[in-house]
């Protein structure tokens, strides 16, 4: 509980206008190439699900009574999934400020999460097999606030992710050195 520097803040008549506004930030979009990865993921998932469903339908129902309704339903789900991802893609954006990181996402409701660097527990950069092919990576930022407060930014340029990581790490270490 040492507040040696607190006296600097003892007199904090800060005008509201002076406090930096997170809304003024221009959020950076994630890499356009990440869309390819999303499409490949969806295709793999739906071809597996489709193979299971249609082999079942064809074996159970030789007269093809339910084949068409199932096919239409299946295509509808596939189409909706692609549409959903297409909607979600441009909503994703991030920004790094001097003291914090911001990530925005969400289709029906837009969620913005701000994590001050001082509160970061640790940072991870993940690469999947596919993302490595595209030179992309995922940045994960963990806090002590539980899983609901952690952020996970997919589709970052590999170098950007590494740079963000080292910047955050630098800030985590810094206050302890000052103390």
């Amino acid at each position, binding site marked *: *509980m*040492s*507040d*040696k*520097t*607190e006296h600097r*803040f003892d007199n*904090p008549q*800060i005008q*509201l206008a002076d*406090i*930096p*506004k*997170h*809304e003024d930030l221009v959020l950076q979009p994630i890499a356009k190439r990440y869309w390819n990865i999303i499409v490949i993921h969806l295709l793999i998932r739906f071809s597996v699900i489709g193979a299971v469903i249609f082999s079942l339908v064809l074996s159970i129902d030789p007269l093809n009574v339910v084949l068409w309704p199932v096919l239409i339903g299946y295509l509808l789900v596939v189409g909706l999934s692609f549409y959903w991802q297409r909607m979600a893609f441009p909503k994703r954006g991030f920004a790094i400020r001097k*003291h*914090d990181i911001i990530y925005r996402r*969400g289709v*029906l*409701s*837009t*969620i*913005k*999460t*701000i*994590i*001050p660097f*001082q*509160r970061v527990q640790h940072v991870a950069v993940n690469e999947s097999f596919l993302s490595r092919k595209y030179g992309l990576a995922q940045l994960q930022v963990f*806090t*002590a*606030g*539980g899983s*609901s*407060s952690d*952020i996970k930014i997919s589709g970052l340029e590999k170098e950007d992710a590494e740079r963000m990581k080292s910047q955050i790490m630098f800030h985590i270490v810094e*206050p302890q050195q000052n*103390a």
Partner: protein
Amino acid sequence: MPSLPPTLSFHEDQRQSLSGIIVESAYLIQKTVKAFWGLALVLALQADRIGWHYLILFLVLILILVFIGGYLSYRNFTFRIDSQHQEFILQKGIFNKKQVVVQLIKIQQVNINQNFIQKMIDVYGVEIETAGSSKSEVQIRAVSKQIALALKSHLMEEVSTIQETDPSKPVAVTRQSFIHISPLSLVKMGLTSRYVESFFLLLAFLSAIYNNVKDIWWNDEESEDEFYQLVSTHLGIQFIASLIIGLFIVTILFNLIRTILVYYDLSIIKQGRSLNIAYGLFNSKSTVIHPQKVQKIAFQNNYFQRKMNLYELCIQQPTSDVHTDKKAKIRMPGCNQRELDAIIKFVLDKPVSQGHLLKPNIRKIIAPLVFLLLLPLGILLLLQINTSIPSMVYYMAFFYLLLAGTLIYFGYQNNRLYINKDFVIKQSGIWDIQTEIIEPYKIQAISIKQNFWHRRSDIGHIVLHTAGGDLSFRFGDYTELKKYVDILTYEIETSSKNWM
């Protein structure tokens, strides 16, 4: 060898009390019973075929094995403090030896407990909680009171010498009695808490009974009308009424006994800069709260408790998972207003001030209104087109609508958020009104949300993530909320205080 005098410095490997063999054995029995009760049941049912003497022999064999196991786990259980590396080292295991090393700096809390068996042979359990893991790996099950207290003070001393960055402040360990909750207050709390839970329990139980009774009558091919006639006769109503009253009394009694057993003799003692809390009739518990580690303070009471000036205080310490980790949450039922204020002031170091008030938009009530009122009403109206519904259902529906409407209204009315530089305070609840207090510098992250259909009406939600759980305020003025996100972010980033 085992009767070495206990060295109270803990720098050398130390065993538990010799009577720890009994505790370890009891623990093993408990584990064995848990694992094999199914098998034991099968064997017991087949006892005639196997023969009783074999069964008893088998039981004796198991008991002998358990005592050998208890002895071995006593022999292999050692603990010490390595002050050079700042670690607490514990070795245990019967066949597979295991070493647990805890960095002293990671120690959150040292709890001294005594369960029923421990009470009988007069030993104490020591539990060391760390920040990383949710369940406490480090558990010493049988030491004398003297050793338990010495170990606790040693650990906390080592911890505080690491953490106390201000050496000019002397660590004055004066034990000062602070607050003691009288049994009468506990009785009052036990009688008035958890009405809502009891009510819903009752409702579920009654509807199950109702359905069963109805099914029986249906099977007997009696007409439905006749069933309702029977229900509405004097006998039926009397039966149901006495059932309701009986259940009500049972749930309240259960709650009363539980409250008294768990929180008997609840006392809070100031110990330097921390609070020592002890309670329990059969299972006595003792735990220490360090104000700088407290993440959230909450208190609640309801209409009756307000009339009697009683509160339940709840102090939340850091945890990796708020929902499963019950230990991080310390409840103190039965404080009065003055005691509550004193504890809060002690923990937060300054009196709470409310600051700017935010109230939710009226649209907050739309969802509950639709799902709890309009939807059931619509279903009822649709049903009555095709089937004849007895008038009793209409009366019940009317009462339900009245009740649900009132509850929704109160839930909305009681929901508010206060923000200022030092505190964020959320008030919520329908019957039990809860107030949660967090300090901005203890916030870990902030989320702000807006549904697309709320864009035009400028409504949004805010979630403040802390290490003691989330605090969320929904249906606020989005422009206001964005402003407070910036202010709170500024508070977090300019604060030099350590959040833990």
